[in-house]
């Protein structure tokens, strides 16, 4: 542990620290950021009245659009002379979001990323190759400062030029790789083309984030590269990488709760849900100076992993991000994320992980039909094998979603393939009501 006195502090001490920092932060943004003053006033909220974490529920949310419309510096809480660095993220809409860091923020960030590296088992003896992009993107410099803070030998190679990455990896004795998960697989493939088996190199652990990836992909990366693959989480609006990280137990990402207050809320009602339930991830930065954010709705869907972690960290764990709140469906009052179906299918033999959900109204009830492709190599000659498969898929999906569904097996490769936002959901409920 990089900072055991903080990462393993008692929950009571942690909560006291959080409340103290929250009160200070709310007073700070109310005074310094016009948007927060306006939001709090409109909500009739006196920031000084918040004196427990429960009171946080009265505080207005911040959304991506707030940051966008403040372009470039409207949400900064300090004078520009106190900002020492900016990063920016490009939105899908084209409008970029700018975040500013004070010297204190950069210092805190380095600690967070040093915690991240240490949590996955890296030490000052490691050689860390930072293959995240350096620049306005937070990945490269975020990992870089953390690696130096840990005291590891840091290779600031940035992304791209894969052959050179592999030569340097081999020649410099790289033991740790930090990059996006998809890039790590490319590194493995290019190395194989060059006649190098990465598994023969000293590389032993990788820190992967900045894009969604699955448990299946972890298995693939770990076997292709012969390493341990650690999931890391962060977003530039909050910090960049270093908000949460897996430890060596690889079962959920410990949130650095002394600096980032996490809530999981129901995306519809915006009410906090209990630990263990899925909802939208909301963060409040407790110590950030440059651009503090209060109850920022990430649109990421996940939950808190219940229970304690054997590693000894007391920070609660965020489960791997399972989807985006924009994709959430409400079926008979239950929140359902299509990505949950994908996770189920990945674990069922003889079906492809391609599916489509068709929602209809039958009377006043929602009817859910999930179309699932039979795997091309499944021996489907016998009808009862198919029926058994259908029942298995149905039971597994119902178990995961807590909603009853009908499963329709469809022909292999019959569901439309597309990159990115695949058309996973066909919702006919509105049309039928209007008809």
């Amino acid at each position, binding site marked *: 542990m990089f900072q055991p006195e903080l990462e393993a502090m008692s929950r009571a001490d942690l909560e006291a620290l959080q409340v103290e920092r929250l009160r200070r932060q709310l007073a700070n943004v109310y005074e310094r950021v016009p948007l927060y003053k306006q939001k709090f006033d409109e909500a009739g909220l006196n920031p000084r009245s918040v004196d427990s974490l429960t009171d946080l529920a009265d505080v207005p949310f911040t959304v991506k659009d707030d940051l966008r419309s403040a372009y470039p510096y409207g949400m900064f809480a300090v004078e520009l002379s106190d900002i020492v660095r900016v990063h920016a993220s490009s939105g899908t809409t084209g409008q970029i979001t700018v975040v500013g860091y004070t010297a204190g923020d950069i210092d805190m960030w380095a600690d967070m990323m040093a915690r991240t590296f240490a949590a996955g088992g890296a030490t000052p003896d490691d050689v860390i190759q930072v293959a995240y992009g350096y620049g306005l993107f937070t990945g490269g410099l975020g990992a870089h400062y953390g690696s130096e803070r840990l005291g590891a030998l840091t290779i600031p190679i940035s992304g791209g030029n894969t052959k050179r990455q592999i030569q340097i990896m081999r020649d410099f004795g790289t033991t740790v790789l930090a990059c996006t998960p998809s890039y790590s697989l490319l590194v493995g493939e290019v190395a194989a083309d060059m006649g190098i088996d990465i598994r023969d190199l000293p590389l032993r652990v990788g820190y992967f984030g900045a894009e969604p990836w699955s448990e299946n992909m972890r298995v693939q990366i770990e076997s292709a590269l012969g390493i341990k693959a650690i999931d890391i989480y962060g977003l530039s609006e909050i910090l960049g990488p270093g908000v949460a990280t897996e430890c060596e137990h690889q079962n959920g990402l410990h949130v650095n709760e002394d600096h980032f207050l996490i809530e999981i809320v129901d995306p519809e009602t915006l009410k906090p849900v209990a630990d263990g339930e899925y909802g939208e991830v909301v963060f409040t930065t407790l110590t950030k100076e440059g651009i503090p954010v209060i109850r920022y709705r990430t649109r990421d869907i996940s939950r808190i992993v219940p229970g304690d972690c054997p590693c000894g960290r007391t920070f609660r764990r965020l489960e791997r991000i399972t989807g985006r709140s924009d994709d959430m469906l409400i079926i008979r009052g239950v929140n359902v994320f299509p990505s949950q179906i994908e996770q189920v299918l990945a674990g069922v033999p003889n079906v492809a992980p391609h599916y489509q959900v068709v929602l209809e109204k039958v009377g006043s009830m929602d009817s859910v039909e999930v179309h699932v492709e*039979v795997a091309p190599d499944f021996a*489907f*000659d*016998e*009808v009862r094998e*198919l029926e058994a498969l259908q029942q298995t898929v149905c039971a597994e999906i119902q178990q995961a979603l807590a909603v009853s569904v009908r499963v*329709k097996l469809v022909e*292999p*490769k*019959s569901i439309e393939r597309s990159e990115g936002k695949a058309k996973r959901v066909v919702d006919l409920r509105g049309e039928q009501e209007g008809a």
Partner: protein
Amino acid sequence: MVEQVSVFLENRPGRLAELARVLGDAEINMRALMVADTAEFGVVRIITDRPHEAREVLEQHGFGAQLTPVVAVEIPDRPGGLADVLETLSNRSISVEYAYCFVEPWGEGAAVDVLKVDDADASKVLREAGFSVLTSEELYASDAG
């Protein structure tokens, strides 16, 4: 053993016609066709002279097609003929998953029974009992003529 082409089909209008057209365009002749269906999907089983080509052309056209080993046994076209065959198998505890018959276009009133069984020894058992188990060549022998 004879190779049967099995095709997984969703129950939607025209799908079986598409399958037949694909095989027809590839000039593949069907000796027998049997559809097992449920409310939502069907499995089409085809005995043809060129099973490998049939599977290939079907896959090219987006069908899920597989080859399944089945037993083709010639039986005298008379009452009790099929019962004799099935009893021979059941006496040896060999289960029949499904069966269908067609009449030989070339024979003298003989029928062919296609059996999906759970035992690779089924052909041997039937031969030893005196039945005529057809090979692929024998089954399609008449095609030249």
